[in-house]
């Protein structure tokens, strides 16, 4: 018996468990890609002359280069530039979650113990998890490619496009294999891999932003940081133009190397424990913990810190880029004018960055408020409500933390952007004031969002997680970042709270929309409270 005995049996078990989850990820991503491809195909077959100038906009604009790498005027390439970063992040998350689910999580929940007591080798679970994740990425590559072929794109480019996304999933399969050995908890393993994903995004974005543009302003050559990131490798395949396949080899090398490291680590640790030992803690609670709000703060402060660091980096980098925006000429200026809603180019740029950050912070608010549901479903709510804590106070604890966290994150971003932006274009003090105002004016939209999640959790607890994330995706796609350029009708755009946020600092802050959003959030919160007070709790058996 060697260390891999039983691997194929565990692969079958993992496939049985993931038979809905993984196909849903793959089909969801492919459906999104096919739909956007078809839309751009339709748009540019009606107005073929627009393709070149539109491509120039995204090439000349460092802010747009963050999203991806452009190689020549081409509908497929143009679509991929829009979708690639989102899809790459999703592919990485699909892979990380799958690997952690079958390794670290199985250990944490005690399932691994039952498996390992059978005729199963020490490395079999790890190998099975990696095989399943790699198979899912292979499927993803093919289905994404088919999606683009169906939407009318050339076959070779489409398949390269699918592979360029799945490549990121392959690399992060290896990353998760290692983080599952390092951290001793599921949350830790996902968190460390997620931090790695953040770094990969940042490196790819930096590489493209600092890259050079050719004389026709249709092709970008990335700077070196892009080559340190699996997301950068995928983009270097340049689907629909060069269709280079060799960057795929980098991902295969990476996953092989990381898998080998993980196998070595498995041989050096105990089942159920990570390489990083579990520390002892305090024998008693500090006064700060002794309230529902203090408890929630304690449970999510690590996540908040991670978000704060991410937004700090985002703010510093994009603030520093302000002078590049100020020097922009030509077609790129029109994009900011549409997105940021003003011809004051710098103001529009900052407004658009604020809106992107607000959408990111809305994701943080959603993860936090979904803990309301997890408390209930996992039973940690029962001991709390068994004490002298009312349901309303429990909800209030989350509301306070969500609001405080959102304010903190937006302020971190505004200050970081103000400092480097002020260095780049001057006038730090007034810029800081403008940006802080622009950051805070995003809060009513987030409050609407948070209150909606609360209503969903109270009304449809069993479906709340999926439904809340669907609402997040919906609000972002019909919001100001994607909605107008996707050519969606106004009534649909109006459904996203982000659409109604004033374009500060480009435009003055008008009180109407702010009050309207505030009122909407108050009504939704009231509905959530009424529902909470009336219903049975759905506690585990």
């Amino acid at each position, binding site marked *: 018996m060697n260390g891999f005995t039983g691997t194929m049996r565990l692969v079958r078990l993992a496939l049985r468990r993931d038979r809905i989850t993984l196909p849903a990820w793959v089909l969801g991503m492919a459906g999104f890609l096919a739909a956007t491809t078809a839309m751009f195909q339709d748009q540019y077959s009606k107005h073929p002359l627009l393709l070149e100038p539109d491509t120039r906009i995204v090439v000349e604009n460092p802010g747009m280069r963050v999203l991806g790498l452009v190689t020549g005027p081409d509908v497929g390439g143009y679509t991929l530039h829009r979708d690639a970063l989102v899809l790459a992040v999703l592919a990485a998350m699909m892979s990380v979650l799958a690997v952690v689910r079958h390794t670290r999580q199985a250990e944490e929940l005690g399932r691994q113990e039952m498996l390992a007591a059978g005729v199963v080798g020490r490395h079999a679970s790890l190998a099975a998890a990696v095989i399943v994740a790699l198979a899912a990425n292979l499927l993803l590559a093919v289905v994404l490619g088919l999606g683009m072929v169906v939407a009318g794109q050339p076959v070779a480019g489409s398949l390269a496009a699918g592979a360029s996304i799945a490549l990121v999933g392959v690399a992060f399969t290896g990353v998760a294999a290692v983080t599952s050995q390092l951290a001793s908890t599921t949350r830790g393993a996902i968190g460390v891999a997620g931090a790695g994903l953040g770094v990969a995004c940042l490196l790819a974005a930096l590489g493209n932003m600092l890259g050079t543009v050719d004389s026709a302003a249709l092709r970008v050559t990335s700077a070196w940081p892009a080559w340190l990131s699996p997301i950068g490798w995928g983009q270097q395949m340049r689907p629909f133009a060069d269709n280079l396949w060799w960057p795929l080899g980098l991902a295969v090398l990476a996953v092989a190397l990381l898998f080998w490291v993980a196998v070595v680590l498995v041989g050096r640790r105990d089942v159920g424990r990570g390489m990083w030992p579990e520390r002892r803690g305090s024998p008693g609670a500090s006064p700060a913990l*002794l309230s529902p709000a203090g408890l929630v703060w304690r449970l999510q402060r690590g996540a908040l810190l991670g978000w704060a660091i991410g937004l700090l980096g985002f703010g510093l980098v994009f603030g520093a880029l302000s002078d590049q925006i100020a020097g922009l000429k030509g077609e790129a200026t029109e994009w900011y004018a549409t997105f940021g809603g003003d011809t004051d180019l710098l103001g529009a740029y900052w407004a658009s960055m604020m809106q992107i950050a607000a959408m990111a912070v809305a994701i943080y608010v959603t993860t936090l408020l979904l803990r309301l549901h997890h408390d209930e479903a996992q*039973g940690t709510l029962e001991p709390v409500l068994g*004490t*002298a804590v009312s349901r309303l106070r429990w909800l209030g604890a989350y509301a306070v933390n969500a609001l405080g966290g959102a304010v903190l994150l937006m302020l971190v971003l505004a200050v970081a952007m103000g400092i480097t932006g002020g260095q780049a274009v001057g006038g730090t003090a007034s810029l800081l004031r403008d940006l802080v105002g622009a950051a805070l004016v995003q809060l009513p939209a987030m409050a609407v969002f948070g209150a909606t999640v609360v209503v969903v959790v109270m009304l449809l607890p069993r479906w709340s997680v999926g439904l809340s994330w669907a609402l997040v995706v919906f609000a972002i796609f019909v919001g100001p970042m994607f909605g107008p350029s996707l050519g969606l009708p106004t009534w649909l755009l109006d459904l996203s709270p982000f659409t109604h946020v004033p374009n500060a600092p480009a435009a003055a802050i008008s009180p109407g929309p702010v009050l309207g959003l505030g009122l909407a959030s108050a009504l939704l919160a009231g509905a959530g409270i009424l529902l909470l007070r009336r219903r049975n709790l759905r506690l585990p058996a």
Partner: protein
Amino acid sequence: MTTAITISGLVKDFGRRTRALDHLDLDVETGEVHGFLGPNGAGKTTTIRVLLGLLRADAGNVALLGGDPWHDAVTLHRRLAYVPGEVNLWPNLTGGEVIDLLGDLRGGLDPDRREELLERFQLDPTKKIRAYSKGNRQKVALVAAFSSDVELYLLDEPTSGLDPLMEAVFQDVVQQLRSAGRSILLSSHILSEVEALCDRVTIIRAGRAAETGTFDELRHLTRTSVVVDTARPLASVTRWPGVHDARVHDGHAEFSVDPGELNNVLERLVDLDVRSMITSPPTLEELFMRHYGEDITTPAREADAEVVATR
């Protein structure tokens, strides 16, 4: 002073098809330890969750410490402590932190009592919850509950993961609370524990109180077992009224007798010239099996429905 718990005609449905509690009656007097027994899925946990205001009663009257558990949840919870059956706590907090937190949210705990209980239950408060075994997680919940001096303790199968030493500590603590005049509702499967601690018991089956009373009262309702040797053959025993489950071999017989027939049976036995005889009152276990036994004959579908009902 009112009774600690008064439940009459309590109905709780989950959806249209599953009735978890079906006109349940339960009374816990102030100052008594009340055993709450029943097979899995009978509705014990559902009852306790209604008492905590976590679930809403569909019909019937429920009074807890003189108040309405749904409307006055918070004020009532200051006066009670609860140990859930399945102890789900926050994996990244330490045991000590959880004890302090739950005690404080209830309105405060006695630090000396906390130290004493940690000592007696041999619990290390510096470990993270995720590092504890099931028994140790249960100890965290027990220490958190017993560190607060409250009028009523609701304990839902609190010792299912404890070792015999810790079980003894638990029984000792409960005895102390009883002598201090506290009321306790103890749901349990451990019959020796219930027998040792409880003044009265209620046996619940399929959402209804099947029997309630002191042990003596319950025993009067139940058959006595008899083992007897006689000089003359015992063959006729099987036909006597009130005799059940008889096994006879010449002058030796083992059987059980209905409560009202014991005297008549004794008179007949005397005629057969008794040489030796052992009679024993029904054990709690036999009492129990009478109710559990009926469950075994319940159709499987209905039993499934009961399991669903506790979710």
